[in-house]
């Protein structure tokens, strides 16, 4: 498939020029907030906001669609498993006992477990979109530079950046390898769950061999460009520097974080999966 799997979208939007450290703070604080709240509507609001941010930065729709497609399995699995294994009460209203929506044999589906399952899935979506806001608008070089500026050894930053960069590449590799094996009559749809898992083995092994080959070539390419030369301090052609706008964004970010955290712990905002207070 001649489709680009790069996460970074090259644009010159307001978000692209924001210092990567500010975006990193957004990811960190945003994720912390999402883990703090449990409310369905807060997750939905966060998703709306991140979508607005992503689209305002000129990220095309098919990239957003790709994220949702990637999250689809999680979005189905979490609410389903939660409902099955964690039937809970009390009721959504003040009435006594859990509101049971459906009961059959050992399976008891309560309204609260459905809401909690959905809000948990949405929480992961929200965190994913917060991270993708950063990855869609920050190129690899800026990403590494920001982490190194924050004190991370350069090699570690590079390892992280390469790891993130290769997630979509390996997704693309999976598609190609799967096509190549299916072209040799490998049927991935036949049989029960275990047979189908087993029939993925030829794909997995071919992928591991390809991944090892790629990592070896990548390591050699980097080494041949003298990466890791002892006793040499790396210089930087384009350094990153905070602009006035970056100070304003950072201040706004921390102010918003403090307000929301106060609302959460002082006034109990978003502790219930359905009710705000």
């Amino acid at each position, binding site marked *: *498939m*001649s*489709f680009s799997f790069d996460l970074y979208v090259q644009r010159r939007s307001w978000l692209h020029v924001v210092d990567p450290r500010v975006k990193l703070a957004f990811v960190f604080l945003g994720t912390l907030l999402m883990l703090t709240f449990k409310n369905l509507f807060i997750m939905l609001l966060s998703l709306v906001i991140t979508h607005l941010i992503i689209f305002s930065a000129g990220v095309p729709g*098919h990239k957003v*669609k790709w994220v949702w497609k990637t999250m689809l399995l999680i979005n189905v699995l979490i609410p389903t498993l939660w409902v099955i294994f964690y039937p809970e009460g009390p009721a959504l209203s003040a009435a006594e006992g859990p509101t049971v929506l459906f009961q059959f044999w050992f399976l008891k589906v309560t309204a609260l477990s459905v809401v909690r399952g959905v809000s948990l899935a949405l929480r992961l979506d929200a965190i994913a979109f917060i991270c993708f806001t950063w990855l869609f608008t920050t190129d690899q070089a800026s990403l590494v530079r920001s982490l190194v500026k924050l004190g991370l050894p350069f090699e570690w930053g590079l390892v992280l950046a390469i790891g993130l960069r290769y997630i979509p590449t390996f997704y693309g*590799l999976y598609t*190609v*390898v799967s*096509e*190549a*094996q*299916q*072209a*040799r*009559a*490998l*049927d991935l*749809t036949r049989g029960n769950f275990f047979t189908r898992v087993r029939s993925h*083995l*030829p*794909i997995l*092994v*071919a992928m591991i*061999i*390809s991944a090892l*080959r790629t990592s070896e070539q990548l390591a050699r390419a980097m080494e041949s460009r003298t990466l890791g030369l002892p006793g040499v301090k790396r210089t930087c052609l384009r350094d990153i520097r905070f602009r006035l706008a970056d100070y304003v964004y950072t201040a706004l970010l921390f102010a918003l974080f403090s307000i929301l955290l106060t609302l959460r712990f002082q006034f109990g905002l978003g502790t219930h999966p359905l009710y705000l207070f």
Partner: protein
Amino acid sequence: MQDLWYSYDDEVTALRGINLEIEDGDYVAVIGQNGSGKTTLVKHFNGLLKPTQGRVLVRGNNGSLRDTVDLTVGQLAQTVGYVFQNPDHQIFCDTTRGELAFGPRNLGLSEAEVKRRVEEALTRFDLEEYADWPPAILGYGLRRKIGVAAVYSMQPRLFILDEPTAGLDHRSSMELVELIGEMHRHGHTIILVTHDMKLVAEFSRKSLVLRDGQVLVYDDTRNVFKHSEVLRDTQIEPPQITVLAKRMAPYGMPDDVLSVEEFYSAYCERF
């Protein structure tokens, strides 16, 4: 192929109304610039891609025409073999023999038949020496050959080869091209996706030129290389020997020379 259209994610239209018929026993080269739709087109033959609009019909081993929409890739693999450009995308077994047996076993053939086909493929592709070697540790040329042999052992009537000579040295390249020619002589239909114009000129009987997802010309290779204006449009450079013969046309050389051998005999006749 009847009025074939294909779009990726409903956003990028890769193929625009392709009408095409490939006959049994043909040797066709699919050429065009990067992004012209070559790979997208051939992936429709074995059902890896299904048309957004239009139909792709493949004649089955029993002679009946079947719509690829109604068949899985695995079902179509009995008739259409697809050799991917990178052999590492398919190699996973611990022996070459196992790699060659994977496809026939998936087709549900008896162990005796699988063994017969594997031995035949090993002999035809001169791989007996490496039969018990792990293919992943062999050189690129050999891995490429194993990739083709692994599809050959399934005995499809139609072979699609994506850039078969890419990354190979001249000797390995010629060896592989010779094997493809032999498969063609044994009655297999061959479809090559390639940028190697020398390979196209010397071996493929017909050429299909694509531009922006449309067929620009589909004709005998000799005629295609005569359409210099079409080739210029698609930035395809004919082989040097064809260009030289064209330049010498005012001096009596034929303008449809495709190989050095043809050039040599035409030259000897005239000068």
